[in-house]
């Protein structure tokens, strides 16, 4: 017999293993109709919100920008992103494939980050499919493209934060429906502090500085500041920290089940 195969291939680094997980996961979105259904719904709903006279009022505003498009993203993502993230870990646990994945020589962080990036890439693809809107406003008028780029960056960052939350929740259960519902609730909690009615309620008795501090914890506040065209380092750091925090939470949830 020839030399054992195991010795013929170089031991791959953690990064290439992470990429293997990412590729598998991303391809996994597209082998079922779920991905296409998601993308179609995403495009339909964004379109509806943007162009509807009562909601976005894209035409009625008479302004060449994408504000009517971006303004609904925090609310749209509240329901659409958990649908993307719910399967990340819950499905692995339900199918028993988590045992396979966790006994392959993939470091835990690489599995978590690989899956997270796959979900993020999927959302990025859906978001990229909205660029005809961008082309349209450029055709219709003379928009500030910097603001639009900022809007896309902010939207993607916010999607990442939602996904990280979803990843963590998904790691805690084997039931996708439960993962979906809890993720919606947790994400909603991250919207509320900056939501108009809530800030109004708070400012009735709390000092303005406190209201502002509370609101700064909201995706809504952060996203709106980015979407205005101001790419502020603090907002980037905020979203990055939320992502990091919940990915660590995912690791803790998986390690916890391993030791249980």
């Amino acid at each position, binding site marked *: 017999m020839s030399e*054992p*195969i*195991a010795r*013929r*291939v*170089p*031991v*791959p680094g953690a990064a*290439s*293993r992470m990429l*293997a*997980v990412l*590729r*598998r996961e991303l*391809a*996994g979105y597209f*082998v*079922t109709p779920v991905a296409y259904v998601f993308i179609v719904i995403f495009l339909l709903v964004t379109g509806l919100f943007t162009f509807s006279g009562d909601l976005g009022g894209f035409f009625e505003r008479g302004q060449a920008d994408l504000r009517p498009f971006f303004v609904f993203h925090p609310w749209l993502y509240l329901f659409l992103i958990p649908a993307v993230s719910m399967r990340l870990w819950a499905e692995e646990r339900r*199918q*028993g*494939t988590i*045992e*396979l994945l*966790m*006994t*392959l*020589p*993939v*470091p835990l962080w690489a599995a978590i980050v690989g899956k997270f990036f796959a979900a993020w890439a999927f959302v990025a693809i859906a978001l990229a499919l909205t660029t005809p809107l961008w082309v349209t406003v450029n055709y219709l008028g003379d928009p500030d493209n910097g603001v639009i780029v900022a809007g896309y960056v902010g939207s993607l960052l916010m999607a990442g934060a939602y996904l990280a939350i979803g990843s963590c929740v998904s790691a805690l259960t084997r039931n996708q429906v439960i993962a979906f519902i809890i993720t919606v609730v947790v994400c909603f909690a991250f919207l509320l502090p900056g939501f108009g009615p809530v800030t109004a309620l708070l400012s009735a008795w709390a000092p303005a500085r406190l209201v502002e501090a509370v609101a700064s914890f909201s995706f809504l506040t952060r996203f709106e500041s980015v979407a205005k065209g101001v790419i502020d380092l603090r907002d980037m750091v905020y979203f990055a920290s939320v992502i990091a925090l919940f990915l660590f939470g995912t690791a803790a949830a998986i390690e916890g089940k*391993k*030791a*249980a």
Partner: protein
Amino acid sequence: MIDIRALSKRFGPLVAVDGVSFTVRRGEVLGFLGPNGAGKSTTMKMVTGFLAPSAGTAVVCGHDVVQEPLAVKERIGYLPEGAPAYPDMTPESFLRFVGSVRGFRGAALRNRIDELVSVVHLEGVMRQPIDTLSKGYKRRVGLAAAILHDPDVLIMDEPTDGLDPNQKHEVRQLIRAMAPDKAIVLSTHILEEVEAVCTRAVIITRGRVVADGTPAELQARSRSHNAVRIAVRVASPALAGGVRDELARLRYVEAVEPCPSDNGSATFVVRPKAGRAILPEVTTCVRAKGWEVDELRVEEGRLDEVFRDITTGPMANGGAR
């Protein structure tokens, strides 16, 4: 190559695995036996790094699974119970995924997958979703994934469970073919499998090792080990009692049990005292009496008997403590 050291696992108040220790060397095929819920799967999950041990550890090819889980995972091929695989993927894409995690790329990956397809016979199903495959094929896909990197250590949780007799035979042949240069552990509750492929058997019950030996050694612990089965031609059934008495009078004979038999002969199982060889005594008697013998055979002992005795006996109820 596998050194399991006082491995324990508690799930809350339940002690699933309680100080299990054994070693497996290259060339050995260890059958890991025990009733359902004895802790077989849990032990395997700890050795492969899926579950963290509550105490103890396992050392695989010199790497401690608690300290260096990745080094251990690189060296183990593991087929989990039920051979889980991503149902939406095809065997092709699934094996490509496992191969790329294992460091195979490009032509090396393609060639290795082609090899595996012929080794485990996946021809014709490589492009079907795993979901749509029969149990036998699914198991083979899992097996292909486990041996993809030609690991030194192969751990399989019930590799033949749910397969039809032909498929079982094929999997066993494959295991036998791989055995000489690997350390293999397989769990099963099919005892014929142990006799067919294993060089050693470890029996656990309630999380503790209660027997460890070659299948032959375990068989020797059977009550029917060295028992002699004899069928004597008799003129009429009434004479069978006389034959029985003669046999019972022999030296070292513990008991003589009549067995159902076809017409014309009286069949007995003669059980020896303490597993002694009693064939000489029996043949001498046969010659002396001038019996016409239709069948004469020494029983090796039955694993299922040993298994039942060991796993339901006083030892199993914590008598060893």
